[in-house]
């Protein structure tokens, strides 16, 4: 148990922080601790969690990506226009097209990073501007409200009438999010390719000397994020029932902060799917709680920022310094095992 705690310190600290905040909020806001609100939270967070597990893979491989959110906007636009051209499409063709475009946009980043040795933050800031610029130029900033019916029809997977007569619902994006989370977890912890991504992010030269294909690693990492961004883009369009060119603009930094909060390291080689989900949830729960408490939305960013700082300080490697007695005995015992 102690061993489990030590190897997953970040996740435990996040769980504790989330628990503390939730307990506080359940007293401060009546509606917080209800099934309906819990489901709302999941519905709201689904898109960001899909982004986050994609970004996690890039961070593990030692890269970073700023462009994925606007890439998702490009996916929304292109996919909707393309599907209209082929007669409307459906969920399957929609997902395939969105995923395909997403992977292609991710591959552009991988190509720049691998072929021209541009460090990923610079490469993706450039593509961020290019993607967004192209999108605004060709759409002239005009939104699409007239989406195919299948995309705008709410798909309710599970619903339950509450005592007060409201309905608690789980919608399609949550299920898609769960699939993405599960598949990403399987991919990075249970396949050799996933472990190679960790190794590559941890020590690129060591991985190279073991014959690991560096180029393939870059394309797989950015491709995976592209895939997730494509799916997330489609889900966001479905959820919002419209395609607005700048709807996702700016969410890349929120997702990045949440993923790093979840224990991923900007240097590569470290991070877990569970931590990453908790990171997004912590931010969503805080915002949701503040909302229910009637706090001015203008204060959200400030409070969320402060909570991210506190959580990161708590979960960093210096935990041993904060809890000397317990952590130290646990550490030596772990060593003797």
């Amino acid at each position, binding site marked *: 148990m102690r061993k489990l705690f030590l190897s997953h310190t970040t996740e435990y600290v996040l769980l504790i922080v989330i628990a503390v905040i939730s307990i506080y909020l359940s007293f401060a806001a009546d509606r917080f601790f209800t099934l309906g609100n819990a489901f709302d939270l999941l519905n709201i967070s689904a898109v960001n969690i899909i982004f986050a597990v994609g970004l996690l893979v890039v961070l593990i491989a030692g890269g970073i990506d700023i462009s994925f959110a606007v890439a998702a906007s490009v996916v929304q636009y292109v996919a909707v226009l393309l599907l209209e051209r082929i007669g409307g499409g459906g969920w399957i063709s929609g997902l395939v097209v969105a995923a395909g475009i997403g992977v292609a946009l991710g591959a552009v980043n991988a190509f720049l990073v691998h072929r021209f040795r541009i460090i990923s933050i610079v490469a993706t800031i450039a593509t961020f501007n290019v993607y967004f610029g192209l999108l605004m130029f060709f759409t002239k900033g005009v939104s699409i409200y007239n989406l195919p019916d299948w995309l705008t029809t709410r798909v309710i997977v599970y619903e339950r009438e509450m005592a007060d007569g409201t309905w608690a619902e789980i919608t399609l994006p949550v299920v898609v999010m769960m699939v993405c989370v599960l598949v990403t977890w399987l991919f990075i912890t249970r*396949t*050799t390719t996933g*472990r190679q991504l*960790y190794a590559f992010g*941890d020590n690129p030269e*060591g991985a190279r*000397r*073991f*014959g690991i294909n560096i180029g393939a690693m870059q394309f797989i990492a950015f491709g995976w994020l592209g895939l997730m961004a494509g799916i997330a883009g489609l889900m966001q369009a479905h959820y919002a029932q419209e395609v607005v060119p700048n709807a996702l603009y700016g969410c890349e930094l929120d997702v990045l902060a949440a993923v790093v909060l979840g224990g991923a390291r900007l240097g590569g080689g470290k991070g877990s799917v569970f931590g990453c989900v908790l990171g997004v949830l912590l931010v969503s729960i805080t915002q949701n709680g503040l909302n229910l408490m009637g706090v001015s939305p203008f204060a959200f960013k400030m409070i969320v920022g402060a909570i991210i700082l506190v959580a990161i300080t708590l979960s960093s490697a210096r935990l041993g310094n904060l809890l000397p007695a317990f952590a130290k005995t646990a550490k030596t015992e772990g060593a003797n095992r």
Partner: protein
Amino acid sequence: MSNATETGAAAPPLLSLRNINMTFGGVRALKNVSFEVMPGEVHCLAGENGCGKSTLIKVITGVYKPAAGAEIAFDGETVPHMTPGIAQSLGIKVIWQDLALFPEMTVAENIAFQTLSGARPRFVSYPKIRRIAEEALARLGVKLDVDRPLKDFAIAQRQIVAIARALVGEARIVFMDEPTASLTQAETDHLLSIVHTLSASGVAVVFVSHRLAEVLEISSRLTVLRDGNLVGVYPVAGMTQSRVTELMTGRTFDQNVRARDVSKNPVVLSVKGLSRPGEFSDISFELRRGETLGVTGLLGSGRTELALTLFGMRQAASGTVTLEGVPAYFSSNREAIAAGIAYLSEDRLALGLNQPQSIADNLVQASLDSILSGGLISSEKKRSLVARWIADLGVKIGKQEDAICTLSGGNQQRVAIAKWLATNPKVLILDAPTVGVDVGARAGIFEIVARLAEAGLAIILISDEVPEVYFNADRVIHMEKGRIAGWHDPRSTTLKDMEAAVYA
């Protein structure tokens, strides 16, 4: 040139290289080198740092691509384009000098990494990985918690992990690049017995080590490189350490005990009953002007902890330190430096020098105050300070602005020493100053140490290599489990006796 004929009807070599040329930014690192390894032999690759040993290993494993005309053959088959992947599949294993491990991953994953490599995706079986890792460690006679991340372990244990990794899977030839650099004597002995076992089962071992005694004990043939050129291939039978040194450097060295009587000199540093729980206890000694005090003992004997305490980076729990009669309590190393104590860190690569920065910037790092002019760094003062020390310590450099990582280990260490001499210290603590420095350059470093002592500097020389302190110190403290286990005077004892006392 080859001595293969002595085996009679020579078996074909397992590995053979011809016409290997390698150039880095205009510098030829390997010039027309050829190299042959027989099946099951223990072959030593010898040469000073920077002579091309590691480069040759990287060419053999496909990490570097040699210039056109190179021929690499394995098991009689030509390999036109070697890559790390092909090397893996041929059973060419390497224990890299820099280990090339994955700190965030578990020990088990590091050791069994071969089962995780390969382009075709497969599912990972953690029980299998754990079993492979435990088996490999068992072969080494070591127990480690294989589920913990590698970063939790010290360098010596990481080295064991790197060795274990090379024992996994079907090895035909194992390259060991300085595998014993951070191992204790017992661990080294164990490794050497594994080398024998490997060799007896037909696996060839190519051994690279600075410790010549080790090399002569274990290998049957010796290939010597110097400045990227092949010097020759020799049978080890009948070789002496001094002969190997001569072949490696092209010069001859004689080693004499340097110890002098300094008991008349005034005391500079006096330490009484210094203790720090869990690290060292009741340490007392006096260090005199012009004296070189050797401190030896195994890894974990408290040597480095003692040095860090004298340098103010940790605080003693009890005991006193006086520097030139004045009590010296340092709450940080900045105060220690200002008081005249300098500490050359044992880990030059990670802590001692800032590798990507220039030679000049590294050299002035600890003495920036002395090159200020009106509150700003004067490039003129900096240049002349650097030039003075470069000339004084005989550092071979191109330009002052070159990155420090372009220098050889020996020259880097000279710059590191110069960095501390520039602070005008009264006491210079040298912690393992020859780690990663080759034989020829080691002699040069100790020349400098002797000259500094002659000029009156008080020096504490820490080393886990007993011969180093035996030949270069005036008196030697032998530490064991944080205590002073004995004092030795090189003038009245033999190297053998001293080694017996320390390694006992």
